[in-house]
């Protein structure tokens, strides 16, 4: 039985790399992941029951990493969700209805991210889903999400989904990119682009696929409302100005049965908040993220955070941060100094990669961070909190009653108290409260997480 020195939460690119780096230095590692298979979203696998005819490059890359975690130093726990953590690094998890507890010497949060939604009239109709949700159906299950598909959001992932759906034989009615930044973009003039030729090539291939299939790709366009009675039957779309505000008189109707939305990503920071780690506001990284140093240490002793779960930056940055955190944490738990030249030498190469990926992260943020108009697509009847059915009128009433931050509005309306614990509505709520009260999004704060960070049944909580 390996003694657990370091618990790593999440087995995506950051967590996998952290586990390998820490184990390489002799640390005993528990790699705890909430899904059936490792890999997170980036290395999402087919179910084991499916037989694949050939492996993609990314799949081969993933297989290589999965092989590296099969070693005695690493205890891999699948289907295990961490639902609580404190500043002393006591952590609670649930694994197939059985409760577990760990108190390791160090914890690396590698919790990853999820698609950022936006609220607009009709966004809760069946047929509206995130870009990631559609990718999962097509890539991992070989099921089409619909027949006539509209894609609306921001970022290159829209092109990736568009191309994927074309390959899968679906009709993509249009791809609407809210940002207009790429219209002015000159790749040769931007330092963040160096070393990213693979990414550029990929994006160009996707665009070509869409062009060949006659799929319109419109920049500076967004969805105004989803139309339909019991499910999506169409969409009203508009031109957007450079701040993402709808331009009056530009509305067009598009027939579709499925709408895939994605406005970048949001980091899963709930556990870092629960542990008491100080947060800083970085809109270009997805909003509130834990404050970290260049060894991925948060403000809580022994608590590290790496990858998209600590700030959106992509798979390359996640891998580098995972290795940095795993290396630094292994030094800490073995009692070796983190301030000496030995660790600096080990990290020197990783910091170079980190610097390069950070440049790309910055560029990405400049191109695709949503404008303030994203919070102006709602009307009074629009649902803000899907789980608790709280509409904008209720949020407005709470603000009029004097609730000036997100937790106060949550207390009055129940927004954020439902099953998803604010993952979906949190940023939307902050944007609406800011807009209604005339304050900045940073000022109104964010939902304070409470344990459990996802639902447990009474029976599970009682340990039965």
């Amino acid at each position: 039985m390996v003694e657990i020195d370091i618990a790593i939460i999440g087995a995506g690119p950051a967590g996998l790399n952290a586990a390998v780096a820490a184990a390489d230095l002799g640390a005993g590692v528990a790699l705890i992941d909430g899904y059936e298979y490792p890999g997170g979203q980036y290395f999402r696998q087919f179910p084991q029951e499916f037989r694949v005819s050939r492996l993609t490059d990314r799949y081969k890359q993933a297989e290589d990493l999965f092989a590296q975690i099969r070693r005695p130093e690493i205890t891999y726990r699948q289907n295990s969700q961490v639902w609580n953590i404190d500043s002393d690094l006591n952590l609670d998890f649930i694994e197939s209805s059985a409760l577990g507890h760990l108190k390791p010497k160090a914890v690396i949060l590698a919790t990853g991210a999820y698609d950022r939604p936006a609220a607009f009239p009709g966004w809760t109709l069946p047929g509206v889903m995130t870009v990631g949700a559609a990718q999962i159906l097509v890539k991992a299950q070989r099921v089409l999400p619909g027949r006539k598909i509209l894609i609306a959001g921001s970022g290159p992932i829209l092109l990736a989904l568009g191309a994927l759906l074309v390959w899968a034989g679906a009709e993509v009615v249009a791809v609407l990119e809210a940002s207009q930044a790429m219209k002015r973009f000159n790749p040769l003039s931007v330092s963040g682009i160096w070393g990213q030729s693979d990414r550029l090539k990929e994006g160009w291939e996707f665009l070509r696929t869409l062009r060949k299939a006659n799929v319109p790709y419109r920049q500076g366009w967004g969805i105004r409302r989803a139309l339909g009675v019991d499910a999506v039957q169409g969409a009203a779309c508009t031109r957007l100005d450079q701040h993402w505000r709808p331009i009056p008189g530009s509305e067009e109707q598009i027939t579709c049965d499925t709408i895939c939305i994605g406005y970048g990503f949001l980091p899963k920071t709930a556990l870092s908040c629960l542990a008491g780690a100080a947060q800083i506001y970085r809109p270009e990284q997805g909003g509130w993220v834990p404050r970290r140093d260049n060894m991925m240490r948060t403000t809580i002793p022994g608590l590290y955070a790496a990858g998209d779960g600590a700030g959106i930056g992509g798979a390359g940055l996640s891998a580098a941060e995972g290795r940095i955190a795993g290396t630094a944490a292994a030094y800490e738990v073995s009692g070796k100094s983190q301030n000496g030249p030995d660790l600096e030498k080990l990290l020197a190469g990783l910091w170079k990669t980190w610097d390069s990926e950070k440049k790309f992260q910055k560029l990405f943020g400049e191109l695709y961070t949503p404008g303030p108009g994203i919070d102006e697509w709602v009307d009074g009847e629009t649902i803000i909190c899907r789980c608790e059915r709280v509409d904008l009128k209720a949020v407005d009433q709470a603000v009029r009653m004097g609730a000036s931050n997100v937790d106060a509005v949550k207390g009055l309306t129940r927004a954020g108290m439902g099953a998803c614990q604010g993952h979906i509505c949190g940023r939307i709520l902050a944007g609406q409260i800011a807009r209604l009260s005339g304050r900045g999004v940073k000022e109104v704060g964010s939902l304070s997480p409470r344990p459990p960070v996802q639902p447990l049944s009474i029976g599970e909580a009682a340990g039965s």
Partner: protein
Amino acid sequence: MRFEPSNPNLPQVKRGSPITLWIDGRKIAAFSGETIAAVLFAEGLRLYRHQEGKTAVSLGGYFCGMGVCYGCLVSVDGLRRRACLTQVKDGMIVYTQPSGYGGSG
């Protein structure tokens, strides 16, 4: 709807062994390894936990696909589970509507 890719960019996949499960009282054929959500899409079922009298807005459905939003909650052998993360098993009993399991949503 299930599809078989004919584009070289998407590897061919052979699904798992055939199984049958019950969805809203109907016997449905599916494949081992599929998620409940995928099977529901294949059967054209997208509206979960509908409440009578609510206009134009359902109470549930597949939204994030990765277990974060809890919009896809269905009843699986009497327990609430996320359809997007739960794989189908032979003989499984699934209800997408609260009337099927006595809940109120």
